[in-house]
């Protein structure tokens, strides 16, 4: 476990409770940490992640913003540039499209444009993903867009423990970090260490060791891949499951080492398949010395080339599920690709 824990006791917390605990710990320890976002005060946030933090820290530190994503994100950038450490919650990560200017042109580039003379320690929290019946404008997985931008760090914790540890790492980071939180994970429970610890940004985690094929998965797809791997084990196929956790920076070494061992690679992610995380990882492996160890073509399993649809069966069909991961893994194991 690559955490630097001050305390070793753990409790069972939900993913959203783990995020809230991280924010509360940071705010208690550092008066410059503030929260900003739409309806994060008495309403508690659209997904109840901030819940009662306004009661504990007051409205000056848990600030409801107007519905002004561009301006709000820019205020967070300006505050970060001048002494505060804001955590800005987008109500849905889709709404960050309204704030691309401040995230991509300002936050990401200020340090560079100013020759290292400025720092923008802002954290953007990005509730993402489909499966809630909210349709095309409230369900996207846009993390790869931001992964394309030098200057940003982009993470996708998949467990409550990482949700806390990686958010605390993001807050300790002097550069802007976007945390993509899958909405279906908010209620997921898991063991979470008490107290302050950080989980490093840029390190993948091997969630299940295996020898026949490597599945690299991100966010909620880690859990679907683990379920598929369990079934594959019953069929005599040993799948290694890697939780990507961070897409910028990306953990080249862990992925390449695994592919050198297994010779087969399946990449599973919810964002639209083309021009996404899968393309980046495929190319990374093809350019590495793991290329000589490949026994089959690399497979990508990503979101459909379509907006997320409303109809529940269509919505389910638009992104990888356990059954589609299983089918792809079987084809790869039997080299039917």
């Amino acid at each position, binding site marked *: 476990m690559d955490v630097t824990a001050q305390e070793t006791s753990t409790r069972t917390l939900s993913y959203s409770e783990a995020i809230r605990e991280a924010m509360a710990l940071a705010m208690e320890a550092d008066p410059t940490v503030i929260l900003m976002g739409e309806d994060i005060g008495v309403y508690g946030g659209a997904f109840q992640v901030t819940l009662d933090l306004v009661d504990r820290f007051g409205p000056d530190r848990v600030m409801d913003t*107007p519905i002004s994503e561009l301006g709000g994100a820019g*205020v967070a950038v*300006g505050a970060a540039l001048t002494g*505060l450490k804001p955590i800005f919650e987008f109500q849905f990560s889709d709404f960050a499209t309204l704030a691309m200017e401040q995230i991509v042109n300002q936050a990401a580039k200020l*340090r560079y444009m100013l020759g290292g003379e400025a720092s923008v320690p802002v954290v953007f929290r990005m509730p993402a993903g489909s499966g809630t019946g909210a349709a095309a404008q409230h369900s996207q997985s846009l993390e790869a867009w931001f992964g394309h931008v030098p200057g940003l760090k982009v993470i996708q914790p998949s467990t409550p423990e990482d949700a806390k540890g990686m958010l605390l790492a993001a807050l300790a980071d002097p550069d802007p970090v976007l945390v993509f939180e899958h909405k279906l994970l908010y209620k997921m429970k898991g063991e979470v260490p008490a107290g302050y610890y950080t989980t490093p940004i840029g390190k993948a985690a091997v969630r299940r060791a295996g020898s026949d094929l490597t599945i690299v998965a991100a966010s909620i797809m880690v859990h679907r891949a683990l379920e598929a791997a369990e079934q594959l084990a019953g069929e005599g196929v040993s799948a290694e499951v890697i939780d990507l956790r961070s897409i910028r920076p990306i953990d080249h070494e862990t992925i390449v080492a695994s592919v050198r061992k297994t010779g087969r690679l399946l990449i599973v992610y919810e964002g639209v398949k083309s021009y996404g995380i899968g393309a980046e990882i495929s190319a990374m492996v093809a350019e590495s010395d793991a290329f000589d160890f490949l026994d089959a073509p690399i497979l990508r399993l990503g979101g459909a080339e379509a907006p997320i649809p409303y109809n529940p069966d269509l919505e389910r069909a638009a992104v990888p599920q356990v059954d589609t991961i299983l089918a792809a893994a079987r084809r790869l194991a039997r080299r039917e690709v």
Partner: protein
Amino acid sequence: MSTTDNRPFAIRTYSPAQLKQALKRMYLVRRFEEGAEQSYMRGLIHGTMHLSIGQEASAVASCIELTDADKITSNHRGHGHCIAKGADVARMFAEFFGKETGYCHGRGGSMHIADVQTGNLGANGIVGGGLPIAVGAALSAKRLGRKDVTLCFFGDGANNEGAFHEALNMAAIWTLPVVFICENNKYGMSTSVERSTAVRRISERAAAYSMPGVTVDGNDFSAVAEAVHHAIARARAGEGPSLVENLTYRWRGHSKSDRNRYRTKEEIEAWMARDPIARFQAELIAHGVLDEAEAIAIAEAAVSDVEQGIEFARGSAAPAIGEVTRYVYAEA
């Protein structure tokens, strides 16, 4: 017994030393930009530039009472704001020349000159980009209990960006210490304010955000200084933001690609006759702040600073090619 002081605001408010420094800075802005333009013509620098020649009073008068603790955000036409905030023209030229000794180590260029340590949060290549950032800087001051104010410079073009409206609204609802300074030079690139903007005066927009809005002659040093002085006082007193509109004019085109097809020679000449530097200098002489000889000495000092700045920049080292990805992230 009371007597009314009828001298212009700046003359009766600021010390002779402050006024002389202001005149020097106005000359520096003019000569810096002429120097940049000539260096471009001679092929010494590449890229493009947006010159503020003709707008010097707006930048310098707005900043006359700021300290290093106060912040500014600027726009693509930002050399004047930098110099007004106290930047060293040698390091500015070095940045223009893409040298390691520049304010941004050659990574930013004309449109990103900044000096965070002295409160200059930077020029900006995106119209309206600096407005929310200025509000964020003012939020930091308020939350951290500091007394500094933020001046936010932008042009008339920015008043139609969504960021302008979102920023003014948030500054008002949170009562933040920020002064929005619109330098209305009549054109957003080629499109006139009349054709782009529904209100007659951009300062009228202030009413929508319950803040004071005032329009002044932006080529009149004293008029700008007075309007911004009251806005700063209001911000420092915790009473919130203001909008000041400085009516001014850029003598040069929008950028190097401009062929001046949208305005007349007569219009340009009429505005050149209202030269803000000549007007301010005449005012200082008329009120005995300095004499002709001192004014000439100040103007010559600016020429000398610019010549030395260009020499410094030309003689400075370029960044190492291997450092193309340096400064993307904090160094461990």
